[in-house]
Each structure stands twice: as C-alpha cells, then as structure tokens.
C-alpha cells in the first residue's frame, strides 16, 4: 500500500484536532480533580459547569458585545466567583455526609444547571466567534484549524501555569497541603477554608476557560456537559484519579485515540472505544498509567 502525501497531510490535520480535543479533556479532568483532591468530592456537575462557562461567554460576547479578548478574562473571573459560591451549596453544608448524598447533590445541581440553561437560552445551538478571523492556516499543505491551535496554545499555557502554581508558589503549596492533610495544614497555620475556596475558584475558572475555548469549535447546547464530563472522567481514571499529570496524559490519549479511531475505523463506535479503554484500565490497571497506589483512609 502506498502512502500519498495527501494522506500524510490528512493524518497530521486529524492529529492536531485530536491534540486539541485531548487538551480540552485534560483541562476538564484537571478542573474537577483539583476539587476532588481538595475536598474529596467527585463533582458530577463538572460538565455542566463547562457549559455554563460557554454560555457566560455567549452573554458577554454575543449579547453584551464585548470584544472576545475582554470577554475571555471577564468570563474566567465570573466563573471563579461562581466556584466560590458553589461550595456553599454543595460542599460546606454536606461536610461529613455520605458519598451517596454528595454525589446525588452534585448530580442534581448539574441537572438544574443544564435545564436552567435550556430555560434561559432555549435548546438551539449557540456559538462564539473564534478569537482570530482566519479559520485555518496552511503549514506545508496541512490545513490546521486556528481555533484548535488557540485551544492547544492556551491549554498548554494554563497547564504550565497550574504546574508552576503548585510547584513554585506559596499559595500552591498551601493548597496542596490542605488537600493532602487538612489537619496538619491547619496546625502549620494554613487557612484551610480559604484554600478550599481558592481551589473551587481555580477549578471553576479552568472550566469556564474550557467552555469559552470550545464554543467556537463545538456548538454550545444545554446538554453538552454530559459528553465533556464523561471524557474528563475517563481521562481522570486513565490518569489514576487524583493525579494532575495523569489527567493530562489521560486527556491527550483519549483525544488523539478517539479522533484517529473515528477517522480511520468507525465514527459511530468512537465512544465505545473510549469506554472499552477505560474499562480495560479499571480491570487491569485501576491505579492508572502512573501506577500510583490508591490509598485508603481509615
């Protein structure tokens, strides 16, 4: 079988799309893993929060007419406020409650958000204009979509920023020690309540960013949260549930894998593939790719 130049170009085009999708999944996974690590809550509304971010973008850019470069930071700030408020609904009143109650509460919150969006904006798809006007750039015959390049660029910057926050700054250390051992952190003088608030704000800011970034590529629909959350959960499981590095690798692998599978094998069964991969991990390597032991508190 001969491989033509066209096929190679096509492959790279598909690959960039996969990397862009993977970067989004990685960010989603990081977003809810931050909260999971800090307070032990799996946020089943994670996808809907991304959707809220996208619709906040729509309000700012399309309805209020702010320029996109202004709307983006405003959206992120608003979402971090939302995160600050969110903890007072589904975290602080639920401290010490069972997993079931917390899971159902976040799930119900997700249902309220998705259907609330539908009540306000209707079921028809919305979209944001891309940050740059040209739809594609041509790199040696490989046509790469500019919104995807922007997604990759901003995602990489964000992930580097998060890594730096946790490895270099005092705030990052305090957030991390709060997540690992709140008792000890309190003894060392860390204001753990404040750190939990910061974590929620950071998590929601990332989710808002994701919503804003995907809005030009995917159309925004009220029910979009589910698909995004599932990919984020899958990325987290592959990454060992609780590991930021793992989530990044997990997200990228899923994005690339699913898009290659859809392009070359079957697009109708692409979500089946992701599910089988996740199931495979659960069966044979539940601790994730980096083989981190799943600890248990007694």
């Amino acid at each position, binding site marked *: 079988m001969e491989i033509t130049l066209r096929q190679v170009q096509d492959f790279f085009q598909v690959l960039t799309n996969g990397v862009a999708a993977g970067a989004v999944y990685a960010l989603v996974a990081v977003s809810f893993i931050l909260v999971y690590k800090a307070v032990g809550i799996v946020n089943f509304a994670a996808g809907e929060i991304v959707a809220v971010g996208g619709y906040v973008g729509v309000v700012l850019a399309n309805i209020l007419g702010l320029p996109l470069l202004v709307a983006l930071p405003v959206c992120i700030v608003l979402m971090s406020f939302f995160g600050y408020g969110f903890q007072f609904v589904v975290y602080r009143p639920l401290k010490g409650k069972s997993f079931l109650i917390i899971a159902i509460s976040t799930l119900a919150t997700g249902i309220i958000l998705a259907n609330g969006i539908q009540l306000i904006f209707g079921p028809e798809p919305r979209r944001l204009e891309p940050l740059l006007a040209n739809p594609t750039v041509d790199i040696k015959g490989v046509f790469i979509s500019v919104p995807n390049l922007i997604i990759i660029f901003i995602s990489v910057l964000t992930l580097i920023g998060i890594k730096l926050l946790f490895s270099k700054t005092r705030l990052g250390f305090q957030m991390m020690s709060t997540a*690992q051992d709140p008792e000890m952190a309190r003894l060392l003088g860390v204001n753990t309540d404040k750190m939990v608030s910061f974590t929620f704000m950071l998590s929601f800011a990332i989710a808002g960013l994701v919503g804003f970034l995907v809005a030009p590529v995917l159309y925004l629909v009220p029910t979009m949260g589910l698909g995004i959350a599932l990919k984020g959960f899958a990325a987290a499981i592959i990454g060992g549930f609780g590991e930021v590095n793992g989530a990044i690798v997990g997200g990228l692998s899923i994005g690339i894998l699913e898009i290659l599978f859809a392009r070359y094998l079957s697009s109708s069964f692409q979500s089946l593939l992701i599910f089988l991969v996740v199931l495979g991990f659960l069966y044979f390597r539940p601790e994730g790719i980096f083989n981190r032991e799943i*600890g*248990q508190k*007694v």
Partner: protein
Amino acid sequence: MTNESILEVDGIRQEFGGLVALDNVSFNVRKGEIHGLIGPNGAGKSTLINVITGIYKPRQGKVSVSGTKLTGMRPDQVYAAGIARTFQNIRVWPELSLFDNVMIGAYRSSEIQPWNALLRKKKLRQRVAGMEKATLEALATFDLDKIADRPAGSLSYGQKKLLELARAVVASPTLLLLDEPAAGLNPVEVGNLQERIRSLVGGGTSVLVIEHNMKFVMGLCENISVLNFGRKIMTGTPSEVQNSPDVIEAYLGSTSFQNSKKS
C-alpha cells in the same frame, strides 16, 4: 503457655508517600497469651493493626496466623482466617440494634446466598438460627442481652466498647486485636475490662492489645512489644520493658509512662 506462635509478624515495612510508617517490624504472639503493643503517639501501632487486618498492603514483609499467610488478603478474608478486631475510635453501626451489630460479625457470607431468600428458605432459616444463637450468646457474655433491641447509637461510651468486644468475639476468633480498649473508660470499667479480656483468653483466644494506658498493659500482658518511629525497640515481659533504657528514652517526656512507673 506453649511456645507455639499464633501470629507471626515478619519484617513489615509500610510507607505513605515517602514517609516510613513501619520499618522492618517483627514479633510473634504466642498461643493463649495476651500480648501488648505499646509506643508513643505516631509510633505506627494502628498502622500495624491495619496491616495485619489487610486494610493496608505492606511494602515488604509478611504476616501469618497459625501458619496461614495473611499478607495480600482482604480484610474480610483475614476475619475469616480467625482474626477479629476492635477500633480505636469506636465503629459500631449506630442505627442498627445491638443484636444486628453483633449479627453482622456472626454472618458468614459463604453460608448464605441471596437466592436463599427465595428458594431453600428452610436451609436459610437453619443457618440464620445458628448465627442468631451465637449472637445472643456473645451479647450475654458482655451483659448486653437485656438491651439487645436498642439501637447502638443510644449506648453509653463504655457500653459501645463492650458492644465492639461482643461483635469481635461472636465468631470465636483465634486472635483478637484490641485497639486501645481502655481509652476513655473510668478505673472501675478498666478493671472490669481486664477481667473480661482474661476470661476470653481462658476460652482459647489469643489477644494483641494496643494501649496507651501503661498500668492497664503492664497488669494484663505477658509480653509486650514496643514500637517507636515505626521501628520495634524490643519485646519482653512487663518488667523487662519497664526497665529498658531504650523504652524509657522513647517515652521521655511522656507522662503516662512515668506515672505508671511511680505507681
């Protein structure tokens, strides 16, 4: 007392995120003895209990009971192998009655399959009757049978400790692990508890007891192992332990030990 070991702990090492909690810990509990496990706070005593009962998987070393290797077993398999425990911070099921709490300890899932509820009801009833009998006997042993229908959450602290003991002995374990059984009890209750533990040993159970209350341990145990910073300092009789310079150093500043020496 025979020299036959019931529990063998051999070279256990456990770490959490780079922090070494247990380092090459070995000791044996002989058949029919009450063995104490002491050490300052953070010495790794509870971690060791969690390793023995299968809640933690140790990085190195192995634990065996009566020659059966426990390492790698799940907690319920360890229980089935004849090791029952109590918890440092009492863990009874508050919304269940005393009877039901102990019944859970008596329940062997290998004997009751869910479909027995539909088919073979007679067989189910026979087996459940056996478990109920054991449950009522265990409750009677700790004088809890008269209030067996109360929810466990309504008990006093001392009664809950007794309930945990009743629950732990209902399946006639060969080894009982007691995690700070005397904590929070008044002197009368402590004396009472010592008697009860002794009578259990008379009934054929060996006991490994973790305790902060030195007087309690010294008066109860035949042998004591001492942990400090995850390492075993020594195993010896109460008087050997009390006179060991290493142990005194480990406890330096710990008032509980000095008090017990004075008394």
